[in-house]
C-alpha cells in the first residue's frame, strides 16, 4: 500500500519537474554565477498586454542573454497575488495598482523593494510619481495611465448636426436631440458593477469637485442624504439611466460596447481601456472621446496609474529584477508599449498615438484638469462595494436603500 502510494506520487512528481523544470530549481539558485542563467518571474496582471510584454522580454534578452524573464499571467490575478504574498511566495517583479489602498498596506508591511532615489525612476514624469509615493518613498514604477471620458460616434454626430457638448446643460440637450431621432444617447452596463462604480466616481468628481467628494466620504457625522454631493450624484445618475438603452440593467460591459459599435447608441461613458473592445466589436464609424462636461464648461479627466511594476523586497535576484524594470522605463521600450497598447505613458518624451482618446488624455498633464479616482482614498474593497451599491441603485431605483447602504459602507 504505502510503497504503491509513494510510487504514484513519484510518478506524478516526475512529470511535473520534467516539463516545468525551471520554476523552482533554477529560480532559487543562490549563486549568481555569470555563466549561469538566472530566472526571474514577472507576474503580469493585465492580460491585454501579455503579447507585448513577451516581445519586450525578447528585446531585453538581446542585451541580457543570461536573465530569463518568465511571464506569469493568471485569471483572477489580484486574488492570486494576494494569496501568494500571504504565503510568503512573491514573484520577483509584479504589476500592481499603486494608487489603491491594498498597495499601501503591502508597502507598509515591507513586501516591496524601496526604490527611492534609484535611477530606475529617472525617466518618469515626477507628477505621476508624487501620486503614488507611500510615506514619501517610492515602492512602485508607474508606466502607463488610464483616463475616463465619454466616447461619441463622430460620424453620426456630424450627420445629425450635433455639437460636442462642453457643459452639463449641453450634454442634456445632446441626449434629448439623440432621443428625438429614435437613437439611444448612452450605452451603459448596469450589470457590470465595476463599470457603474467608475461612472459614478467620475460623475461625482466632475459635478462637485474632488475635495468636496473626499470630504463627503470621510465625514462620518453627516448622513449621505443631507449632502449636496449625494443629491447631485443621484440626479446625474438618473439622467444617465433615463437616457440609456432600456436593457441597460441587464447589460454587461461587452453589450454596451457592442451597442455603441453598431451605431445604435451614440455615446459610451467608459475608460480609454475600451478602445480595443470597440475595435473588436467592428466599429465602422469614426469615434472620439470628450471629457465629461460640467457646469463650468471645463471638462475634467478622472484617471490613475494603469500599469505599474514593483519588485519584491525579498527577491532572490534583486539586481536582475532591477535591470528588467529599468529596461521597461527606457524610452524605446515605453514607446513600443505606447504604440501597441495606446495608453498614455508616464515616461518623459513618450507619446501614445491614440487620436480617439487624445482630447481626454491630453488633460492628464494639464494643471487643474486631472483628478485621481476618489476610491484611491478608500479602504480596500470599498471600491467594489461602491460598484455594487451604485449598480443596485441604477437597477432597483430605490433611493432610500441606496442612501442607507452608503451610510453603512462609509460608517455614516
Amino acid at each position, binding site marked *: 500500500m504505502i510503497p504503491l502510494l509513494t510510487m504514484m506520487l513519484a510518478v506524478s512528481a516526475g512529470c511535473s519537474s520534467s516539463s*516545468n523544470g525551471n*520554476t523552482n530549481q533554477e529560480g532559487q539558485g543562490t549563486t549568481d554565477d555569470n555563466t549561469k542563467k538566472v530566472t526571474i518571474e514577472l507576474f503580469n496582471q493585465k492580460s491585454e498586454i501579455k503579447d507585448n510584454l513577451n516581445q519586450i522580454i525578447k528585446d531585453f534578452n538581446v542585451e541580457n542573454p543570461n536573465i530569463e524573464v518568465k511571464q506569469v499571467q493568471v485569471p483572477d490575478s489580484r486574488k492570486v497575488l494576494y494569496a*501568494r504574498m500571504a504565503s510568503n511566495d512573491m514573484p520577483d517583479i509584479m504589476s500592481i495598482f499603486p494608487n489603491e489602498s491594498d498597495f499601501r498596506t503591502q508597502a507598509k508591511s515591507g513586501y516591496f523593494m524601496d526604490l527611492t532615489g534609484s535611477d530606475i525612476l529617472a525617466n518618469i514624469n515626477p507628477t505621476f510619481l508624487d501620486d503614488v509615493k507611500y510615506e514619501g518613498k517610492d515602492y512602485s514604477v508607474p508606466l502607463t495611465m488610464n483616463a475616463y471620458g465619454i466616447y461619441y460616434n463622430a460620424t453620426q454626430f456630424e450627420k445629425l448636426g450635433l455639437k460636442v457638448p462642453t457643459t452639463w446643460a449641453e450634454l442634456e440637450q445632446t441626449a434629448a436631440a439623440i432621443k428625438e431621432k429614435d437613437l439611444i444617447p448612452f450605452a451603459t452596463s448596469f450589470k457590470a458593477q465595476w463599470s457603474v462604480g467608475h461612472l459614478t466616481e467620475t460623475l461625482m468628481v466632475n459635478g462637485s469637485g474632488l475635495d468636496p467628494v473626499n470630504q463627503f466620504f470621510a465625514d462620518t457625522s453627516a448622513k449621505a442624504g443631507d449632502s449636496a454631493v449625494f443629491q447631485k450624484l443621484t440626479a446625474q445618475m438618473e439622467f444617465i439611466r433615463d437616457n440609456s438603452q432600456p436593457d441597460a440593467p441587464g447589460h454587461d460591459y461587452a453589450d454596451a460596447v457592442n451597442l455603441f*459599435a453598431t451605431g445604435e447608441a451614440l455615446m459610451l461613458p467608459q475608460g480609454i481601456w475600451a478602445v480595443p473592445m470597440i475595435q473588436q466589436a*467592428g466599429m465602422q464609424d469614426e469615434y472620439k472621446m470628450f471629457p465629461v462636461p460640467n457646469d463650468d464648461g471645463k471638462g475634467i479627466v478622472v484617471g490613475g496609474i494603469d500599469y505599474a511594476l514593483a519588485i519584491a523586497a525579498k527577491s532572490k535576484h534583486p539586481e536582475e529584477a532591477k535591470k528588467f524594470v529599468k529596461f521597461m522605463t527606457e524610452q524605446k521600450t515605453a514607446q513600443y508599449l505606447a504604440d501597441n497598447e495606446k495608453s498614455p505613458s508616464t515616461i518623459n518624451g513618450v507619446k501614445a498615438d491614440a487620436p480617439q482618446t487624445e482630447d481626454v488624455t491630453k488633460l492628464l498633464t494639464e494643471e487643474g484638469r486631472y483628478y485621481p479616482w476618489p476610491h484611491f482614498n478608500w479602504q480596500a474593497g470599498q471600491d467594489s462595494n461602491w460598484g455594487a451599491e451604485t449598480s443596485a441603485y441604477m437597477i432597483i431605483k430605490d433611493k432610500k436603500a441606496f442612501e442607507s447602504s452608503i451610510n453603512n459602507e462609509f460608517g455614516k
Partner: protein
Amino acid sequence: MANDKKLSGLSMALLTAGLVIVFLPLYLTLITAFKTSKESARDFFSFPSELYWGNFLEVVGSNNFVQFFMNSIVITAVSIVLITLIVPLTAYAISRNMNKWYYKTLFVLFIVGIIIPFQVIMLPVTKLMTQLDLLNRPGLILLYVTYALTQGVFLYVGYIKTSIPKELEEAAYVDGCSKFRTYRSIIFPLLNPLTATIIIINAFWIWNDFLLPLLILNKSEAMWTLPLFQYNFKSQYTFNYNLAFASFVLTIVPIMLVFMVFQKQIIAGLTGGAVKS
C-alpha cells in the same frame, strides 16, 4: 393497455420538450464559436453566415492547449487512482469499528467536512501548501484525494453497512487470511458498483474544477489545467466571447466523445452504487 400507450406518448412529448432546454445552450455555444466578434455583436442568436474557424485556430495556436489537456488528464487520472485506493479502505475500517471512539470521531469529522464551503479554509490551505513546497501538480492531487474523502467515506460506510455482511470476512479469517488480504480479495471487489459511482463523480469534479488549480498551479502556465485556460479569456476590461466559446467547444468535444463511447459503463457505474439489487 391503451392507457399505457397514451401515457408513453405523453411522456415522450414532455421529454422532447425538455430536450430543447437541454440542447439550446449547447447549440448557441457552437454557433458563437463559429462567429466573428463583429457578427456576434450584430446578432447573437442567428446562425453564422459562414463557418469561421479563426476562433479555434487562435485558441489552439496561441496557447499550449495540448499541454493543458494533458495536465487535466494526468491530474484527474492520478487523483482517481489514489482515491480508489484510499477512500474505500478507510471507509471499510470505519464501518467495522463504529463502536470504537477513534473510528466514530473520524467518521463524524469526515461528515462535517462534506458541506463546508472550500472558501472557508482556502487561505490557510494556500499558506500551508506554500510552506510544504507543494504548489505543483502533486500538491493539487493530494488536495483532491483529501477532499474526496468526506463524501466518499460517507457513501462507502452506508453501502458497506447495508450490503456487505460481516459473516463473509469472518469466514475468511477462519481460513487464515490477514485483514488486508480479506479486504483486497473479498471486500473490495464487492464494492465495485459504488467504486464506479465514486470514480465518475470525482472525475467530473476534478476535471472541471477551477478554484483549486487557480490557487495551486498559478506559478507557471506549463502546469495549467483546462478550466484555468478557459477562464483566462475573461478579464476585467475584456471578454472575447467568441474565443471563450470556441475554447468551451474544444474542451466539451473530447469529454463528449469519452462520454458517448463509455456512456453505458458510466451510467451503469453511476447508478450501480446507489441501487441495491
